[in-house]
């Protein structure tokens, strides 16, 4: 705990004429769950792209801890219909792994026993969990999720985020996620960063939800939704929900 995984300083990214991100500073520590929120076009995905190395910034620095292992769960993975792929084979990309470890990762992601199925035959929830299982297999120090619950309904998304918290508790990895499910994601986070071209506010979920900048972007309603979610979240803890409530 406490190791700094990524330090972003003074980051500016332009695509052609438009400045997507400017003057972004960001630090990610091991063991913390950080959520990026922001309206459409606020640069969330661009920031993740820059962290992964696919987007070249015009200015600023991105320092990764030496040898940092990243597990990445994309927003959507489009498998071309012509590409046959079992879950097990997918989990072996790009590195060979033992069948035992694959079984463990699937279990940890909440989808035990689906190794032999075709990726294309999975439901939305199972597919996202298979992506999570693959990311876990990388033994990541930093888990990056880009709107990983975009295709899931709210209970499905809540169950998914609960999985993330469990993975963090078990492995001690840092987590950076982008989400639209404001109320679902906020309480699962240690720290929330509200992005709108720049970092307009950050802090614990309560601090951000109360910040004027945040309320200007998302309206007053979300604070109520946060409280609502807290209730819902407690609920899933007290009752022993079946693992696959998502499906």
């Amino acid at each position: 705990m406490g190791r700094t995984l990524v330090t972003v300083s003074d980051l500016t990214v332009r695509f052609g004429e438009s400045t997507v991100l400017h003057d972004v500073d960001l630090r990610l520590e091991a063991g913390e769950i950080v959520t990026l929120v922001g309206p459409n076009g606020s640069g969330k995905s661009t920031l993740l792209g820059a962290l992964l190395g696919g987007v070249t910034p015009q200015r600023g620095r991105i320092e990764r801890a030496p040898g940092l292992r990243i597990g990445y769960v994309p927003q959507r993975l489009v498998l071309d219909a012509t590409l046959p792929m079992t879950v097990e084979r997918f989990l072996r990309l790009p590195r060979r792994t033992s069948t035992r470890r694959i079984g463990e990762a699937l279990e940890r992601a909440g989808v035990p026993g689906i190794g032999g199925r075709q990726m294309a035959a999975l439901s939305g929830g199972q597919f996202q969990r298979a992506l999570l299982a693959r990311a876990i297999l990388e033994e990541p120090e930093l888990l990056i999720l880009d709107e990983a619950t975009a295709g899931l309904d709210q209970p499905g998304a809540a169950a998914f985020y609960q999985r993330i918290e469990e993975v963090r508790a078990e492995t001690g990895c840092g987590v950076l996620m982008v989400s639209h499910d404001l109320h679902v994601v906020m309480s699962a986070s240690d720290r929330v960063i509200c992005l709108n071209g720049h970092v307009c506010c950050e802090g614990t979920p309560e601090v951000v939800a109360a910040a004027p900048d945040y309320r200007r972007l998302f309206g007053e309603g979300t604070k109520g939704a946060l409280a609502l979610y807290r209730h819902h979240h407690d609920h899933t803890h007290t009752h022993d929900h079946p693992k696959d409530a998502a499906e």
Partner: protein
Amino acid sequence: MTRATLAGVGTGLAAAPLGCFVVWRRMAYFGDATAHAAILGVALSLAFSLPIFIGTLVIALVMATVVSLITGRGYAMDTLLGVMAHSALAFGLVGVTFIEGVRIDLMAYLFGDILSVSRVDLAVIWGGAVLVLALLGWRWSALLTATLNPDLARAAGIDPKREQLVLTLALAVVVAVAIKVVGVLLITALLIIPAATVRPFAATPERMGLLAALVAMLSAWAGLQASYAFDTPTGPTIVCVTALLFSLSTVATGLRRGA
């Protein structure tokens, strides 16, 4: 005849697994553009008295590189590739007529002339096949990861651009190798038809690559036999065999689904 068989089988062996990537990444037109440009390479080889293999390899490489540079820059890809593929072909055809003193049989380059394969050609074909297979085998997992999603690859420390380059290089080698066997107009067929044929029977990418190679080799052999028996041009006959196998596979899959 033995030489021709070996040439066909070697080409099929190299083309089919690469063809799987062409299918998965939807690069069929990319293959066409590279292959058609090769006729320009033939013209240049003749003009500078170079071996055909060298000329076609260089031009195919240039074309494939230009196309992959343009990829992902927001152009309307199919239109642009159509322009490049066919203008390269046209310039190649016109260019060949300017070369004085050489009366060449254009048909041999457009549709292949497998029966005239020399020992040297055979060595080039198998050398190229081994090179392509080694390249694909070495980068296989990285290529697959990059094919699935570029960011997924980057997170795992793989540079998707480098993998694209590997495919580009392999494609240029296959084009240069296959020109003698099926000719520039039919190379794409040899790349994608075997892969499409075996898709319903493969559960993993590896099995698809392997089955596609088997189908391509079988087609090369059977096509050669058929062209001998019916006195038909060999390159097109080989492609006809793969097309027939594709139809069989499609019908069989349809029946299996219907049952």
